[in-house]
């Protein structure tokens, strides 16, 4: 590895209304390294990267790239200069095809005028194969699963042939198999002399692929270290300013209670194939599986968000018909979706109004919403979950990803549901917040609630759940008690090797 500095961001400052997202941040990268950028939710990682790609204009500071002062104009200038970026939020065009999305903004032309679809397709296939993805490149992106879309984002960044590639939480939606492919790709990129900035909340990954780490906290640089000089505890200390004790909460002391939810043979062609499972009072039931295994679809079916073609659902022994979310909510089932921006939150509304949305009936008096009670309710949950927000009246759109996720959780906690389904509840959430959420889940379970957690992170599934279900292509292929589960066993079921 050469010591040549390829990127230097000096004294960067970025203001949002009411928030100083970046405060005199300095950050530099060497050519050919994989440089991790760490920090809690809202530390400013994504913002710093958006400044780098010129998606945002900084209020102060300068960027030196390849020894030249980089003029901030617009994303295309950054792209041309050799900076490719995979953003944290999806930026694909849903109605366009995979191939069009990959080359968006950089379509090859024939005779200098018309788009050359043929060579575009060929190139796209090659890229996707390299990522272990066998996909019809003429499919519209809207028909792909979230994970497949993430892979398209990665392919898109790779196709730019950039010298510096930023990956902002690329693995948040991926499962281990894709992650392995991605890491393989990262290593070969590194070998060919490319520089990579890697953002993730999964610390194990940092040790696996990164050379150095820079930590941000509250919009300021904490410091930069070689990964070899660090262990997990040191890393966490840099991020949160203290060491964390036990990461995963202790398991249930309370013995699990009676059967609450019983799902029998539910079917939805193409996604769910005769799925049956049950869930008990006081347990955390983990659902693991590879991308596209149908876990989200299963949760949606139970919640009444999608129509099911066949099968029965019993609650406390009685058969129930849940054909719309409202019914599920009335039966005290809550569902925190994996995609918070599209499905979890009303971005234009305030934190307060998002939290109170499911429980308006509790703060009505004579048919009118009582503002004081609403405010108190929201403030209570902001405190319980330590949501970082300028106030409960601030629009939820201005919060960092992790804090937005906490608002989603607050909404269902406020509703006091008996069954809470959490789809990727810690996606994109920092370690500190993760531990808080795990503890909260455990506390809720101890109170006799049923927690169903869908997660793609194996350590999390194993660390938190009392019982684990594994899905593979629309079927449940394995069930484990927490004590018995290992990553290998789960992976075998998830890949369909054992049925």
């Amino acid at each position, binding site marked *: 590895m050469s010591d040549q500095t390829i990127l230097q961001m000096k004294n960067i400052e970025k203001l949002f209304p009411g928030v100083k997202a970046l405060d005199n941040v300095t950050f530099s990268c060497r050519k050919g390294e994989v440089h991790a950028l760490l920090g809690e939710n809202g530390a400013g990682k994504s913002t710093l990267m958006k400044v780098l790609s010129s998606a945002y204009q900084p209020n102060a500071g300068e960027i030196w790239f390849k020894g030249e002062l980089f003029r901030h104009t617009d994303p295309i200038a950054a792209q041309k200069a050799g900076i490719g970026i995979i953003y944290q939020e999806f930026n694909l065009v849903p109605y366009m095809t995979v191939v069009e999305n990959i080359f968006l903004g950089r379509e090859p032309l024939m005779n200098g005028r018309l788009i050359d679809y043929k060579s575009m397709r060929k190139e796209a296939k090659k890229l996707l194969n390299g990522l272990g993805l066998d996909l019809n490149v003429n499919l519209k992106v809207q028909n792909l699963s979230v994970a497949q879309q993430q892979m398209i984002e990665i392919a898109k960044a790779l196709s730019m042939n950039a010298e510096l590639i930023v990956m902002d939480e690329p693995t948040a939606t991926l499962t281990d198999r894709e992650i392995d492919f991605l890491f393989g790709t990262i290593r070969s990129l590194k070998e060919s002399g490319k520089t990579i900035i890697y953002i993730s909340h999964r610390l194990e990954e940092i040790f696996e692929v990164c050379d150095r780490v820079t930590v941000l906290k509250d919009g300021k640089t904490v410091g930069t270290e070689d990964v070899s000089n660090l262990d997990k505890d040191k890393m966490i200390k840099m991020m949160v300013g203290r060491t964390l004790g036990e990461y995963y909460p202790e398991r249930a002391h309370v013995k699990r209670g009676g059967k609450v939810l019983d799902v029998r043979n539910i079917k939805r062609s193409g996604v769910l194939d005769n799925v049956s499972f049950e869930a008990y009072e006081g347990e955390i039931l983990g659902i693991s599986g590879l991308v596209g295994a149908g876990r989200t679809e299963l949760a949606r079916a139970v919640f009444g968000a999608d129509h099911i073609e066949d099968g029965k659902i019993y609650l406390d022994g009685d058969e129930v018909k849940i054909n719309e*979310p409202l019914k599920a*909510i009335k039966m005290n089932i809550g569902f925190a*979706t994996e995609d918070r921006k599209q*499905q979890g939150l009303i971005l*234009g509304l305030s934190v307060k109004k998002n939290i109170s949305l499911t429980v308006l009936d509790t703060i009505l008096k004579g048919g009118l919403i009582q503002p004081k009670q609403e405010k108190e309710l929201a403030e209570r949950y902001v405190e319980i979950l330590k949501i970082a927000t*300028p106030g409960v009246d601030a629009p939820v759109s201005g919060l960092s990803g992790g804090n937005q996720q906490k608002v989603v959780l607050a909404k269902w906690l406020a509703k006091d549901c008996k069954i809470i389904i959490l789809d990727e509840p810690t996606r994109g959430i920092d370690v500190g917040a993760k531990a808080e959420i795990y503890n909260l889940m455990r506390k809720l379970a101890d109170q006799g609630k049923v927690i169903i957690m869908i997660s793609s992170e194996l350590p999390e599934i194993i660390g938190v759940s009392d019982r684990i279900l594994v899905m593979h292509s629309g079927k449940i292929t394995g069930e484990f008690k927490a004590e018995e589960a290992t990553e290998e066993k789960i992976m075998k079921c998830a890949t369909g090797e054992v049925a």
Partner: protein
Amino acid sequence: MSDLKISKFNRHHFMENYGMLFVLVILFIVCAIVSPYFLKVENLLNITRQVSVIGIVSIGMTFTILTGGIDLSVGPVLAFSTLMIAGFKDYGAIPAFLLAMAMSLLFGLVTGTLITKGKIQPFIATLGMMTTVVGIGLTYSHGHPIIGTPDGLSFLGQGKLFNTIPVQTILFALTALAASILLNRTRLGRYIYAVGGNEEGSRLSGIRVDRIKTSAYVISSGLAGFAGIIMANHLNVGEANLGSGMELDAIASVAVGGTSLAGGRGGVVGTVIGVIIIGILNNFLNLINVPGYTQKIVKGAIIIIAVLAQSMQSNRKK
């Protein structure tokens, strides 16, 4: 630092809600200086009267726009309501009133159903309804105006409280108040914002999105019908073409009042301000005798400038 955050935030919040009020005040002052007639009590009362009908229609439009939709059919629905009032005058005030309201609400229900169950985009569904309802009105009235309104309703259009304040003005104010409470303090209102902000998110929060959207169209049509009743009693006539062009005026007022056409943001207070701004402008242009063509240019420009000012303001935060 935390304090700083909050105060900044609130200032922004304030500007968002009251920025247009500021424009209104400026406009008011300019008018008062330029035209000696403007500040006369009678003139000011006239303005409030003149904006009442379009104001009530615009309040209804606010509901549909907040859900992320739009209602192009308000003009014809209003006109149809005038036809009902005039056509059924012989059956007495209350039956005519109820019939006019019932038909308006029915049109709203049809529109809402087309949009929610038929999954037709609001613009297109209401465009279709617009043409259809005019056609029905013309068929009913054979294209002729129907003269006269029921005894006992004319105070709605012509009455004055204490012999000074027009009843129309009072009805407008009451409608605005009721709509404001509905939007800010009830579940329906909150859900209208939620649906306009994120439909799928609302559905997954247990909101019956279809029902909420349909309600918005029923409210919009209902208020258009109510405005039609007022207008019929003011003009003493019912006619199938009376509301033509009203939809664009109402939409302009809502937009000038700061409600986002994308849905989820804005409110009735803004709409009332928007309606009054446009009303004052019309009055002022007449008072200073600006010729017709020029008025068109000025009005088009004012709509653009008002909305531009808003967008500048909200962009400053970036």
